[in-house]
């Protein structure tokens, strides 16, 4: 199994697939109802000027999450992108 990273730690433009959402309660509900559920493909779009919140492209739209929320989402990063971003 590939290594999972937290969405919070992902770099700009990195892509990946959500594997697990550990948020519960209201936060979990809000995250899921916006379509951040396992097996969804995402791409980090950018971060606000103070590095938080983070903007994520998911299912044809852009969603912003605070780092608190992004720390509850585990993503399997696409291999090609990882190499590319680590090089950069």
């Amino acid at each position, binding site marked *: 199994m590939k290594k999972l990273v937290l969405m919070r730690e992902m770099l700009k433009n990195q892509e990946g697939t959500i594997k697990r*959402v550990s948020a*519960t309660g*209201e*936060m*979990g*509900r*809000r*995250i*899921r*109802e*916006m*379509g951040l*559920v*396992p097996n*969804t493909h995402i791409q980090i*779009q*950018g*971060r*606000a*000027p*103070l*590095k*938080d*919140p983070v*903007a994520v*492209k998911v*299912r*044809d*739209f*852009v*969603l*912003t*999450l*605070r780092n*608190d*929320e992004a720390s509850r989402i585990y993503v399997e990063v696409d291999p090609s992108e990882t190499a590319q971003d680590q090089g950069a």
Partner: protein
Amino acid sequence: MKRKITIALAGNPNAGKTTAFNAITGARQHIANYPGVTVEKKYGMVHHRDFDIEVVDLPGTYSLTAYSLEEIVARNFIVDERPGLVVDIVDASNLDRNLYLAVQLKELGVPLLLALNMMDVAESRGIAIDVKALSEQFGLPVVPMVARSNRGIKELLDKVVEVAQEDPEWRMAPISYGMDIDRALDEISGIIEKSSVFDPKYPTRWRALKCLEGDSQITGLLKRDPALGKEIEARCETLYRHMMNTVEEEPEGVIADHRYGYITAITKQVVKRKIESRLNVSDKMDKVLTNRALGPALMIAILYGLYAFTFWASEVPISWFETFFDVLKEGVTSILPEGLLRSLIVSGVIDGVGGVLGFVPLIMLMFFCIALMEDSGYMARVAYMLDRVLRWFGLHGNSVMSLVISGGISGGCAVPGVMATRVLKDPKERITTLLVIPFMNCGAKLPVYAMLIAAFFAKDRARMMFLLTLLSWGFALFAAKLIRSTLLRGPKTPFVMELPPYRAPTLKGLLIHTWERTWEYIKKAGTIILAFSVVLWTMMTFPGLSPEKRAAFEQDRREARQAFLASPRVDGVIQGAAQLTALNRMYLTLRQEKDIQTAGAGEGHLARVAEAALHLEETEPGGEVLKPHEAVAIRYLEFRNRMNQIEGQEQQAALKGTIAGRMGQWLEIITSPLGFEYRTNIALVGGFAAKEVVVSTLGTAYSLGASDGEETGSISQRLQQDPDWNPLQAFTLIIFTMLYVPCIATVICIRRESSWRWALFSIGFNLMVAYGVSLVIRQGGMLLGLGD
């Protein structure tokens, strides 16, 4: 056969619901509130193919849980009012997420129609949707449309009528959530059906589902049968433990995942994507507009630009309003005899309501700019960029718009600011924002600042204004922090916000938005604010001067008149009171006309005196020998001054005796540590109506004789010369004015957006902050020896 149907429009925020609603109903719409809450309810009527279709706009939601007011409102409307059909407005360019709500509506079982909006956007992004296949797979009628350009609206209504003729039943569509959950659902359904709380309004399986999701509203209803409630709770608990042990997920999470699974299974088949460029236009715009360095700079420029535009463009219309109210006042003054009725209508009603309505152009333009930012999608970016800063103070990214509008850049208005708090979903964040909004420097405070700055800080004008802007932000943010860490403590709400794609707003949409909100403001001015204005007028009018005192002033006047008529050189020219009255009239007419040539005072010695008086008033008399009528004119001007003085004294005496005046005097007990004596207190009481009243009331209280002179200028001079006043005193009053109470209009709006309790609290809270801060400034300043 039924000829009438009610349809409810549901949909995600930004899916185009409002646009669709406007396209369907045209101008025939009404706005109300859902009972008991401040969520707007819009409804309208349309006639199509012999059917009367009533259209209700539900609040925009992503889901149907019980966690936000909007969702509860939408859900209760569907369940309680039983609309004949729910039309789910779905954004075709963003199908998966939009269908999440559709799935939940299907689960609820209400007759449903999908309106596939934004087909143009989908096409331009290379997303092709097989509408027929979608309809078959989903088991629902689907109508493609482009609400913004009215495409598909007729077809939608055709479909609505078609469905209405069939008069469909509610039919819950069960979705499978995996074996474990499905079994639990069956069992809980069994329990519910057996019991007394069984309610045919709700589909049983849906209630069971809500129990598993931990929905507070539904479990609350079931708990009315305690035994049953326990049984269900136990079943949910078992499932919860089982799920955590096996898949390490809450049932609720699993349910959501299955819904999305169901959706993706369908969209995989019916949506075809051409290879699209990975960045659409909107993403490219975001690269610049939310860029880390450029984004904030552009944001300031954009906000400032809209702001400057609002003020620039509203200047002229505001002067029209002012002229209108002035003309109205003159009209009333000339029709009604002097007395209480006239005073009530002129100073109570017209000044009060006019003061509020006078702002309509400004407020309208401000609402227009807000609508522009909302409809274009930029507002969400502002919230995104500033969230981190505001969060530290316990606010939300979306709070910033309210603060800016209320006077974040000097000169806004708290009323639209208060209304703009509606975008805040979390009640604590919203109320905190409401409570700190009145600290911003709204336009009505500016005349007060201007007057005091002119008197005591004339050299540092610009620097003072900048300082005051910074101070108001500082006070607002720290007050927010204070409130959020004491009174409204609570966890930060999750911030999961969509950045909708940038869209060019339509003029029609903007105008409708603007007008709706402006109308709301106008209605308020016409009702509650009118009542309050009358109350305040009463306080500043009654009880009037006692007859003896009035007689004394009348005596002073008579003496002044006689002294003037009897003075040397006058006695031969102006004979008797009748001629004096005629001279007065001529002089005033001339003064109003300004242009002596065209006004043509007419023939005769009185006219010559009047003309000369006017000349002399404008130009200092030179060294030359005075002509006889000029000498009279000089005397005449002296006489006028004396009369003004008496009038001023009378007004001052009258004001001092009124309820407001007495309050001002009592208040000295509290305000003397701030250095405010009764005259300032009266002005501050008057400022509750609207802050700019502080200046005019101070004018009256310092017996300026209201009829003469440009008031701001002269009250400035007056305070400058007064030994009790100094820069420290002026600064204390500036800060007190900045903080002390929201004006009536704002209080009313705060009440509307929250409750009377919070509205009253905001008055008390602001007063306390104002008092505390002013006390520190005044006493600190005195200690530092600034008080002289």
